[in-house]
């Protein structure tokens, strides 16, 4: 019954198309805008020199990417352990609920960031 029943109901409501053309246009427009932003971002990348760690918009310290170092940052929100190795910075450990910062790939290009929203922590590669 079901497909028949659905068809009848659709006919009754006078709208047999599940998706309007405008819906698809909106969908593809958003995808294209996203892709363009991503491409522009990728093309503008260049190797960074330092890593700037800030919490709540306040810069805590700047670490050179050349030196391998492991540093723990304790803030009122929680702790994140930042590791610099082979010219790349990553968050190795954190006690935040979502662990998104830990899963984030290592960063080394100018402008790349790792953001830990629960701890308001931003790791940003700068020149």
């Amino acid at each position, binding site marked *: 019954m079901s497909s028949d029943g659905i068809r009848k109901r659709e006919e009754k409501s006078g709208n047999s198309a599940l998706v309007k053309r405008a*819906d698809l246009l909106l*969908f593809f427009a*958003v*995808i294209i805008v996203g892709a363009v932003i*991503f491409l522009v971002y990728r093309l503008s990348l260049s190797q960074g020199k330092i890593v700037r760690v800030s919490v709540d918009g306040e810069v805590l310290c700047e670490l050179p990417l050349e030196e391998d170092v492991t540093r723990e940052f304790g803030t009122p929100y929680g702790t994140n352990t930042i590791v610099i190795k082979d010219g790349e910075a990553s968050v190795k450990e954190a006690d935040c*609920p979502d662990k998104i910062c830990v*899963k984030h790939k290592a960063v080394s290009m100018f*402008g790349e960031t790792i*953001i830990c929203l629960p701890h308001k922590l931003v790791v940003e590669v700068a020149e």
Partner: protein
Amino acid sequence: MKKSSRAAYVGVFAALAIVLSYLESLIPVFVAVPGVKLGLTNAVIVVILYKIGAREAFLVNIVRIAVTGLLFGNPVMFIYSLCGGMVSYAVMFALKKSKLFSVAGVSVAGAVSHNLAQVSLACFLLENGSIAYYMAVLLITGAVSGFMIGLLSVYLIKNVHFK
């Protein structure tokens, strides 16, 4: 629809939305960008918006954000959730009124505006401008998940009947 059944539906759907919010937080996301998620809760909001009414959808949204914020979140996540929820509600409400799009388009706009609101808030709170990467990822994932959730909502709107 009677006033009392409207109130009952708000309660039932708020509970459903809260459970879905929690379920969603258990699903691992493989993209390391905050804010990427399925958006199952939005299907609830969309269905109510179309089947019951705008006021009820708003109430369910507010209750859902307040309760999940208290139960599973911290104050920071609560602010993000509130900002995303309110902006996406406003956008979906306006687009539904405009009749330019059907359910799928409204859902896409809701998901994308939710993500854009949260990225903008992050930009403002973290005072950090270099988040083009997050913006791009959230636009694309928002459009895809919004579209899927939109199709799910169309199916629900057509097949779930309210008394």
